[in-house]
């Protein structure tokens, strides 16, 4: 109930955006959902690019910063001063936080409620104006208000599973085998839940996955070169390039190596020292 209260203004905004994409732009409902995702993600691109750039610098200088932190361990004020100077020197922006990006989570939940109530709250007005259920279709496959169990819905679920597995596979390339296996099993474990989702929400999820994976591949491509990600090219990702990259994940992984190397050794060492025997 409390959650619903917080989400109401957001739901109104999403409903407004959806109905406008449908009425003013003239998109079918399903494509209005896709367009809404693309708009939200496009608005976030400048922020994301700035954030990723800052984080790449942070990762590259991680050992030096760790050294600074250990050196001034007993003098927090001095440590903060040194760190701030270091940030400035290396173009790291610590004031930025992931909050605006995290704000997508309520948007997702809000859209879930909007789509769940679509049939009862939004569509009747359109039905009264003579709109048929045909306008709810997506590529003649699904009605966006139906559960994904209905009709061609399962195809959408399969597409979801594939997109989820692909991005998991690409994201987990540097992980431990056991954790990687878990990450690849989970999308399948989610399918029973997903079968109760409205197809419209599934569309939203698919579009989000495609965008996230594409964006991830492009930023990975830009990481090893250590050059500021060009904002304009990331706004309109070249498709051929993105697919070409997807075909050779091994190569992108090897260029991504420095991160796990920094991350791995200290962890392994300490685990062995402390709990080597008790762990298995």
């Amino acid at each position, binding site marked *: 109930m409390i959650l619903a209260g917080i989400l109401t203004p957001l739901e109104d905004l999403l409903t407004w955006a959806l109905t406008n994409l449908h009425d003013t732009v003239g998109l079918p409902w399903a494509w209005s959902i896709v367009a809404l995702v693309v708009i939200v993600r496009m608005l976030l691109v400048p922020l994301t690019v700035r954030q*990723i750039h800052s984080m790449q610098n942070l990762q590259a200088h*991680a050992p030096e910063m760790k050294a600074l932190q250990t050196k001034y361990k007993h003098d927090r004020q001095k440590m903060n001063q040194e760190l701030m100077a270091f940030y400035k020197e290396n173009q790291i922006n610590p*004031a930025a*936080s992931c*909050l605006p990006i*995290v704000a997508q989570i309520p948007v997702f939940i809000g859209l879930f409620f909007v789509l769940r109530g679509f049939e009862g709250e939004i569509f009747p007005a359109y039905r009264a104006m003579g709109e048929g259920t045909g306008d709810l279709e997506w590529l003649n496959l699904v009605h966006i208000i139906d559960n994904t169990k209905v009709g061609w819905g399962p195809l959408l679920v399969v597409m979801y599973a594939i997109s*989820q597995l692909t991005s998991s596979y690409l994201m987990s390339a540097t992980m431990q085998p056991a*954790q990687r296996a878990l990450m690849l099993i989970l999308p399948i474990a989610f399918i029973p839940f997903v079968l109760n989702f409205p197809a419209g929400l599934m569309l939203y999820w698919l579009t989000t996955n495609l965008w996230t994976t594409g964006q991830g591949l492009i930023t990975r491509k830009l990481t090893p070169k250590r050059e500021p990600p060009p904002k304009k090219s990331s706004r309109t990702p070249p498709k051929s390039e993105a697919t070409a990259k997807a075909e050779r994940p091994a190569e992108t992984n090897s260029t991504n190596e420095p991160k796990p190397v920094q991350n791995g050794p200290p*962890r392994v060492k300490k685990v062995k020292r402390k709990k080597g025997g008790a762990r298995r």
Partner: protein
Amino acid sequence: MRYLGIALVQAWRQTFGRLTPEGTCKYHPSCSQYALDAFEKHGLLKGTGKAVWRLLRCSPWSHGGVDYA
């Protein structure tokens, strides 16, 4: 027990984590990686505590930076 925590973090990554592209956290490693490391290193209880504290430290007023579990 620690695998419960790891599974929960992975579940997060599969769902809402998808909405936050990698490399957008102000800390390094990211909060979810930090949580995984914390579970590996400290077990479920202390790992959860450390991970929650890390999440709470993510605010516009914190400095972020390098912070291993």
